């Protein structure tokens, strides 16, 4: 069990408000990923759950129990810190054992637990080493092992893979997901890498400047963003967002949905463009294109397109088109318009945009 509920949580450091009136429920047993740009308050949230950086006001529940007064060690959580924070003067074994010793777990039991966890993370040959004699990846594993051995009901992981090389990172990702499947406990995982968030999460919590922008499954957050921020944060390249003719509403479409053709396509959204750059990735090609005139009349503007079609040369003239169902509309404040919010006049503006 390990459901975490934030209720009207605020946090300030002195005068600066970092988090204002946050409400959030992290579901039990799920792999929740907190994602957001650097400095948006992800670590701050984790530290609140851990009890080492208490909220300024508001209530925090784990399993329905208000835990503001529960000391960090008694909350049933384990945390992997952004910079590992492994004890430099203890051996790997000492590091893993420290928490167990403090909990007065008998020696024989400790030995089995340590052997077990060391085997899982592949540290068995290094148990006698000091942290200074380990590679970055191995230190990361020590930090993980130290958290795992406590068998917590909530795992807090603060960018645990950020210091690893690309290959090791991918394999550690898989290992963490497997670990989650095996343990079925609550994981709260922090990252600023949206790919990592997309590939690992059951639920993504996307944050910006201390506010939650959207909380949803990776599929939903990609297909059905709530606002411009989410639409642009999730997905590579970010969603194309254009001001519309009225200068207020915004129109968005994903680079993956852009169709390129030599003749004008019969689609709701169709514009003339020039190819600026072409970047071939193998199965797909990313084009950067320039529209002669933005819809709101502000001049030249660039859009991205990602298609399997690689036949367009730089400087060639093409048509870009987007199907009606792949268009996203946002209001002035960047909020998504859905269903009835999309008036026929909006669609008319979309269709006319290029002509005038």
């Amino acid at each position, binding site marked *: 069990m390990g459901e975490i509920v934030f209720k009207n949580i605020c946090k300030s450091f002195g005068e600066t408000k970092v988090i204002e009136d946050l409400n959030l429920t992290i579901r039990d047993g799920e792999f929740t990923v907190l994602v957001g740009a650097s400095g948006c308050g992800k670590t701050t949230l984790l530290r609140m759950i851990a009890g080492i950086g208490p909220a300024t006001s508001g209530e925090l529940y784990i399993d329905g129990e208000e835990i503001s007064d529960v000391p*960090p*060690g008694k909350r049933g959580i384990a945390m992997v810190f952004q910079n590992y924070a492994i004890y430099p003067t203890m051996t790997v074994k000492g590091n893993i054992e420290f*928490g167990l010793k403090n909990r007065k777990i008998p020696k024989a039991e400790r030995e089995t637990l340590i052997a077990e966890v060391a085997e899982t993370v592949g540290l068995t040959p290094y148990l006698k080493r000091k942290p200074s004699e380990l590679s970055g990846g191995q230190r990361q594993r020590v930090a993980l092992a130290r958290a795992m051995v406590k068998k917590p009901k909530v795992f807090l992981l603060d960018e645990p893979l950020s210091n690893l090389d690309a290959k090791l990172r991918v394999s550690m990702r898989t290992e963490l997901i497997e670990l989650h499947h095996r343990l079925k406990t609550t994981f709260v995982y922090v990252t600023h890498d949206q790919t990592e968030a997309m590939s690992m999460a059951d639920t993504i919590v996307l944050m910006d400047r201390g506010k939650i922008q959207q909380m949803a499954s990776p599929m939903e957050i990609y297909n059905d963003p709530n606002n411009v921020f989410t639409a642009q944060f999730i997905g590579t390249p970010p969603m194309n967002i254009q001001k519309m003719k009225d200068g207020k509403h915004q129109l968005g479409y994903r680079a993956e949905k852009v169709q390129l053709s030599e003749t004008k396509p019969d689609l709701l959204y169709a514009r003339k463009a020039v190819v600026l750059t072409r970047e071939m990735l193998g199965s797909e090609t990313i084009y950067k294109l320039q529209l002669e005139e933005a819809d709101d009349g502000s001049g030249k503007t660039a859009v991205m397109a990602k298609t399997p079609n690689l036949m367009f040369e730089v400087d060639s003239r093409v048509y870009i088109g987007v199907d009606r169902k792949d268009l996203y509309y946002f209001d002035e404040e960047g909020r998504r318009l859905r269903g009835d919010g999309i008036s026929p006049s909006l669609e008319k503006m979309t269709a006319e945009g290029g002509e005038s």
Partner: protein
Amino acid sequence: MYEYKKPNKKLLKVKKIVFAVISTFFKLLVCVIFAFPFLWMISTSFKTLYESLLYPPTLLPQNFTVDAYISLFEQVHLERYILNSLIILVSVTLLQVLIMVPAAYAFAKYNFKMKGVLFGAVMVAFMVPTQITFVSVFQMFSKMQLLDTLLPQIIPCICNAFGIFLLRQNFMQIPEELLESARLDEAGELKIMLKIMLPMSKSTLVTIMLLSMIGTWNSYFWPLVMTLHDSVRPITIAIQSLRNLEGGLEWPIIMAGNVILVLPVLILFFLASKKIIEAMAYRGVK
């Protein structure tokens, strides 16, 4: 055209050798200048009284003898003073550590009321020389009727302000996450201090202890004014009083006493020198 001039390799080599010779010579010279008094002291301590008065003096003892050392213990009973010194040394060192470590931890990692003022008081204590405070301390002990015991030689020295300052600086460099991590591991504050902070500051602590131990072992002025009777006096005062033996200035005995006085300091220094250099050197590795 740009031409690359080959450096004259031979000339470079000669220069290097000349430099090495000169620098080694000077280093040796400095060594001799510093070591000579020590060697002279040791040599004299093994001479007979007669030989020690010869002119011109002999460099090494002609008739090697340990008589001086024997009379130190048989006539002067140096062992009593050594015992006093050891009691003072051990108590002062232990009490200092006992006070210094928690104080430094609190100053480094806690926020509490009056922290600035209290730390200011520590810094003042560190800067005011003992000669200024000794009159009032003397009066205090005199009122408590504790003069002429070991206590006034121990109690005023148990707060090592310099040590608190140095150790605090060291503790402050330890990242907060380590302590938080330990708290998540259910470690109490005492455990954090002993198992995490102290091992990470071992070399600094050893240096502080060593400096304070040398200071305590060598202290002369304070015990002299606080005591009257030989039974509670430390070795330093005994060595000084060797000048007033009945037989006049017996150089071998005085020198033997001094050898015994500096020997523990030298041994300590050699044992701990690696740690001291570690503590003083810039630490680039985390």
